[in-house]
């Protein structure tokens, strides 16, 4: 738990300070042989209490910040911990290979899978390579290519959503960002293998949904998923992007809200303080949830699976008549 982070969010500061103090005292105790266990225990209780108190009543905006935390485990961090024999495959066979979208084959326990996910970078250099997790059309087309491969070889598809949005660039428009996303939505709706979708960080709009249609939608506790970013929504509706925290509140973009709206099926718990405090625990929780879904979905005949999937989306929305 004694981690140093690149970024410390305001509401994380007290707990980060306490953890730092605990680490120092433990170090001191080790070096000098002085027994500090009482003091350390007291500080640890204090840190735990603070965590319990703060994280049991996080505001939507705080969750947005946790979802964006640059120390949060990304797609490859999870794949590393969840899958074995992972082989990353590349390219859309049409234009290029998009490093903002990971796609490959591997095993989760004894289940052969196709694994697909947005990939963010940890620092500036990595982020330039990964385009901050914002895919171009070729990313979505690579994803589709691998989904079709999954159908061909009868492997389930697991996707990991973590993107601030599909890339809004000139080339992206020229190469049909909208068409690439639309095509995926249509194809995923009737893909003849189980699809488990996980939201592990940010789920922004069509860029997220482009790999987000499936049989089970699992969302980690401190993520957000919506039609636009809170900043974007604030800029358009409030004409002021500093109103993002208020927009986040109104948008019902957290996992508990989305569970109520039937947009997601399950919430995956994160370690105390958020996924970035313990990658292993975060990934283990994710893996457990994915396996439960895989075992359930693999028993369902393909026709029924697709029928149920379409019914699931058919029911989405709220209207009067």
């Amino acid at each position, binding site marked *: 738990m004694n981690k140093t982070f690149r970024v410390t969010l305001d509401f994380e500061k007290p707990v980060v300070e306490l953890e730092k103090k605990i680490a120092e005292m433990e170090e001191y105790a080790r070096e000098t042989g002085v027994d500090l266990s009482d003091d350390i225990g007291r500080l640890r209780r204090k840190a735990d209490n603070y965590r319990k108190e703060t994280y049991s009543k996080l505001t939507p905006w705080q969750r947005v910040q946790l979802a964006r935390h640059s120390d949060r485990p990304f797609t490859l961090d999870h794949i590393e911990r969840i899958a074995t024999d992972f082989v990353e495959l590349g390219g859309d066979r049409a234009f290029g290979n998009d490093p903002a979208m990971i796609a490959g084959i591997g095993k989760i326990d004894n289940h052969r899978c196709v694994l697909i996910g947005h990939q963010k970078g940890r620092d500036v250099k990595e982020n330039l390579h990964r385009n901050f997790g914002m895919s171009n059309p070729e990313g979505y087309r690579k994803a589709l290519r691998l989904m079709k491969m999954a159908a061909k070889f009868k492997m389930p598809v697991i996707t990991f959503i973590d993107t601030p949005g*599909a*890339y*809004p*660039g*000139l080339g*992206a*428009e*020229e*190469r*049909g*960002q*909208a*068409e690439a*996303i*639309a*095509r995926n*939505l*249509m*194809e995923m*709706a*009737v893909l003849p293998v189980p699809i488990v979708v996980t939201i592990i960080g940010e789920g922004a*709009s*069509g860029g997220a*949904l*482009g790999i*987000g*249609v499936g049989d089970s939608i699992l969302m980690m506790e401190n993520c957000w*998923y*919506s*039609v*636009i970013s809170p900043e974007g*929504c604030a800029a*358009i*509706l*409030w*004409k002021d992007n500093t109103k993002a925290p208020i*927009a986040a509140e*109104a*948008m*019902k*973009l957290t996992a508990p809200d*989305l569970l109520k*709206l039937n*947009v997601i099926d399950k919430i995956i718990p994160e370690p105390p303080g958020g996924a970035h405090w313990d990658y292993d625990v975060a990934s283990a929780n994710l893996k457990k949830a994915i396996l439960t879904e895989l075992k359930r979905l693999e028993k369902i005949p393909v026709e029924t699976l697709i029928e149920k*999937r*379409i019914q699931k*989306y*058919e029911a*989405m*929305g*709220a*209207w*009067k*008549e």
Partner: protein
Amino acid sequence: MDWFKRRKGIATSEKKAIPDGLWVKCNSCGEIIYRPELQKRLFVCPKCEYHFRINSKDYVEYFFDPDSFTETGANIKPADPLRFRDTKKYTDRLKAAQKTTGLNDAAITGDATIEGKPVVCAIMDFTFIGGSMGSVVGEKIARAADRARERRVPLIVISASGGARMMESALSLMQMAKTSAKLAQLAQEGIPYFSILTDPTTGGTTASFAMLGDVNIAEPGALIGFAGQRVIKQTIGQDLPEGFQKAEFLKDHGFVDLIVHRWEMRETLGKIIDLLWAGGGKAKNNGKVASGEKAAKASRSSDAVAPGKN
């Protein structure tokens, strides 16, 4: 010159596709056009062929056979699942839009015929909260797709939309998946779907059903894209090329099949339906492949009478 001033004042209102008043200024070439004349020309500028934004009722009149349209799903009305409130309440925005447009939400659906051929259609309306797609638009398009599947007739969706509706948040986003799933079902039955893209078609609408036509047809000059131009400009830090995200740009890059003049849309659709779906998809292919655009151009020059006014 009083009417110049008056027209200008009204033109700033976002509620109307085309400002009221006897004289209308072309958004493209600035020509001042006598309104009845413009109406006779289906709101296409006589000088530069600019296609004005028109509402769903106009499209019903212009693109389908006279009096062939029967509305379905008219009783589907918006709810406020999130109890959304920004600077205004969503329910107030809905009420205001319903009052100014006379519509329940941003799309109407129905049965109609095109050149005598039965179709199911959904027509979006940009004047209703920017043609944004929320649960009602999603549900209506989904039901239209189901109806097309049941009746085994082609589905036509005419898009005019700024994208997904923010006030229904993730539920709006899910309408992209919902409509696309329904189109997938329709496609599996081998029934054609034609997407007509009008000005503007952007965001989540483009990134779902609007791009998924067996044939995608755009009106000339229509803005069609995924991301907003301001966002793109900010992202890339440079100016956008001329004609960026226009229908012609989309055609050049391979994302729309045809650009068809408003006057020729019905005829072109009729021809394509004949070729793809004569006899309910059972007829043999009788050879000739039409270039709809070429055909449209040819007949446009020969006859300037509005098809909707015959």
